[in-house]
């Protein structure tokens, strides 16, 4: 792969006078300024198809006089590095060329920006009804704009009772079955539109954002510490990962170097969280197949790990631990050792469970060949995390763009190729084991010393990233004077992966639906934000 300097040079040569490039060695990042014309999709195609960069996300910001759109890409092989395409245009110009035809992964990013900023993406098949549901909100409302008046939005909205979700399947005899937003047992609120012609479901599309809490909007105007609370709590089953990504963004802006002990302890906490998350999903998978003894055994392990987290860090979901500059608490080596030992024990029990599962043909039958996502589909939709890795798509930010202390650790990112429910389960099991291995390595790497340094806020922009348990997460922050947040952007793995959910939910038997959902293991809160 070309170095960032070569990338910059080539871009300027290919589009002379139109693309301006510069390299920020610190990040390391190459910015390509493009005009808001057809050149943009061309450059995107070059970066993604020819150079092999992965699309991370789109950050839109309304400045005083201009729209600022930043498209973020990262390298997945070779030297770590980022490419950022940037366009700026006057506020009166409300339309931008769409890049979705080139990078399908940008589809939902553009829909979201259109819904919340009122920008039109030329060439994007506009579908309406996305973040702001059409039966409750008028089309003109654009809450992310600076001039948006919260008080107007607060008026009691009258629902449009005639609104119906859009249907795709038009076959004679086809009918749509909405499931949700409140359905079965203990589930997050989301609606699924199952389209069927009888026994089998042809397609299932999720309608999300029932839990839209507008964290990107309410973050604006707040101080860093207050924004941290939102970062940590918008998807709290993976609170530590998101709090860490946010903290890293602040550390980059404020040029803070986190002490080595804190970096290592961050790895420990992040892996403990990943382990607990994966065990939780494994529990859901067992539950969805009706294997109740295995499900209850897995649920015991999840509770065990919640208790280990609480015993180590004071909170079952590791709240209040990560802050810009390090961690709020130093753990003694003995406490770390205890947590690691407990994790090893839980892993041993997980292995016993795994052995049992591998010999349960009734269990395997229900997972094999169910909810398949091909490698090409995963690539096209830019899927991330265990779901992508179960379809043979590499990509783990801990390796590709190391952060915290990960550059010192050697570990595997397990890969499977079948892309079905069973492959996803195997990836989860293998990653859980890797997490414990990393935790074990932590104990040998703990240096004595402080776990935090003071951070004095300064204006600037940066993004932080982590490989969260569900996949790549990016937190972009723009701090103004006095450490006030001007713009906060969260790109979460569940947002990316829900986009591809319907690929796994095509032509299946109705009773398999909970299984497909469980093997995805996605969070609705993390998507809805």
């Amino acid at each position, binding site marked *: 792969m070309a170095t960032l300097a070569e990338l910059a040079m080539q871009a300027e040569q290919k589009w002379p006078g139109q693309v301006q490039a510069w390299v920020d060695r610190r990040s390391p990042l190459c910015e390509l300024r493009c005009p808001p014309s057809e050149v943009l999709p061309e450059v995107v195609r070059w970066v993604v198809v020819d150079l092999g960069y992965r699309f991370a996300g789109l950050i839109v910001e309304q400045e005083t006089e201009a729209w600022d759109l930043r498209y973020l890409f990262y390298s997945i092989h070779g030297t770590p590095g980022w490419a950022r395409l940037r366009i700026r245009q006057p506020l009166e110009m409300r339309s931008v060329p769409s890049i979705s035809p080139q990078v399908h992964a940008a589809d939902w990013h553009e829909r979201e920006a259109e819904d919340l900023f009122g920008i039109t993406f030329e060439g994007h098949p506009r579908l309406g009804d996305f973040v702001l549901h059409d039966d*409750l909100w008028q089309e003109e409302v654009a*809450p992310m704009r600076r001039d948006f008046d*919260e008080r107007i*939005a*607060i008026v009691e909205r009258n*629902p449009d009772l005639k609104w119906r979700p859009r249907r795709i399947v038009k076959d004679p005899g086809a009918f749509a079955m909405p499931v949700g*937003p*409140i359905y*079965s*047992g*203990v*589930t*997050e*609120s989301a609606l699924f539109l199952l389209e069927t012609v009888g026994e089998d479901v042809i397609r299932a599309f999720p309608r999300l954002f*029932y*839990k*839209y*809490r*507008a*964290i990107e*909007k*309410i973050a604006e105007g707040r101080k860093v*510490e*207050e924004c941290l*609370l*939102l970062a940590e*709590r*918008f*998807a*709290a*089953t993976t*609170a530590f990962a998101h709090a860490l990504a946010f903290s890293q963004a602040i550390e980059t802006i404020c040029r803070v170097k986190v002490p080595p002990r804190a970096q290592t302890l961050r790895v420990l906490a992040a892996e403990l969280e990943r382990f607990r998350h994966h065990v*939780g999903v494994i529990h859901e998978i067992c539950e969805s197949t009706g*294997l109740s*003894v295995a499900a*209850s*055994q897995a*649920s*015991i392990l999840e*509770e065990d790990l*919640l*208790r*280990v987290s*609480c*015993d180590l860090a*004071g*909170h*079952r*979901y590791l*709240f*209040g631990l990560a802050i810009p500059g390090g961690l*709020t*608490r130093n753990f003694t080596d003995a406490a770390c050792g205890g947590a690691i030992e407990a994790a090893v024990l839980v892993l041993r029990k997980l292995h016993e469970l795994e052995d*049992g599962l591998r*010999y*349960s043909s009734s269990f395997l039958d229900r997972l094999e060949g169910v909810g398949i996502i091909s490698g090409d589909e995963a690539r096209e939709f830019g899927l991330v995390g265990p779901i992508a890795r179960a379809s043979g798509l590499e990509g783990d930010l801990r390796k590709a763009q190391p952060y915290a202390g990960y550059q010192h650790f050697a570990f595997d990112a397990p890969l499977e190729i079948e892309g079905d429910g069973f492959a996803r389960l195997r990836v989860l099991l293998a990653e859980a084991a890797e997490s414990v291995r990393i935790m074990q390595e932590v104990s040998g790497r703990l240096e004595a010393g402080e776990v935090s340094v003071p951070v004095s806020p300064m204006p600037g922009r940066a993004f932080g990233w982590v490989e969260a348990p569900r996949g790549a997460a990016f937190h972009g922050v723009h701090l103004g004077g006095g450490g006030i947040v001007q713009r906060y952007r969260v790109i979460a793995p569940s947002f990316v992966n829900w986009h591809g959910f319907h690929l796994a939910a095509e032509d299946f038997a109705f009773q398999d639906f909970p299984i497909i959902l469980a093997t995805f293991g996605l969070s*609705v*809160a*993390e998507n*809805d934000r």
Partner: protein
Amino acid sequence: MSPWVLNGLRRGVITTSYPAHQEAAKGVSPGLPASLVPVTEEAGRVLEALCPTGAISLERGEARVDYRRCIHCFRCCRGTDLPLDWKPGYEWATLTTGGLSAAAWPKAFHKSMHILVVDAGDCGACLNEVKQLSNPYYNIHRLGFFITPTPRKADILLVVGPVTDHMRLPLQAAYDAMPTPKLVMAVGACALSGGVFGPSFVARGGVKDVIPVDVEVPGFPPPPLAILHGLLVATGRKPPAPWQAGTAVAGSTRPSSALAG
């Protein structure tokens, strides 16, 4: 015998002895900051300023913590040289003023209670803790609690989340579809006060802004035992926590953003 049954038997009994006895295992609860502790004026002001949700107030020489707002940020204990005491425990649920427990209708409810769980915009943690109630450690079935997917069979409505605008109508519809008498339990700081999210232009300041609430369970998230205590308070089988409770229904005014300033 299937290998799974054997496997299950081998584990033996791990179920908590709560409510007969208190649970002593480590890691079952994050605890809460101690309320009504005497503090100096200076320390009190520092604590007030530190708390991001305004949960701490200095009253007559004491630091009072409004648990309905506490979001477990630990700033009042880790962020200052004069920290509040942190106290373990999980019996945090209260009956609201105007709220009722099942004891108010001695004949109406059966021995077993069916619970409808509604996610009105939670972050996933409260819901995950509700889910843990069915694991063998807590096994709420032994106490006659069952989770049901249908409002028509439900006795208790358990709501998590600040109530986003997109969930307001589905929540109202679920509440209306439940037979009377019915009990509403709001679980978690968001469901009690909006938490870090509400009130805002897309979320309420808790469940009481939409439907009347009988039992409040503080915590962010409340651990499984705290939710279980809430269920026991709702059914009149355990006394509520000794601190002041909220009211069942909110006033009509809606303050703007929760964390502003």
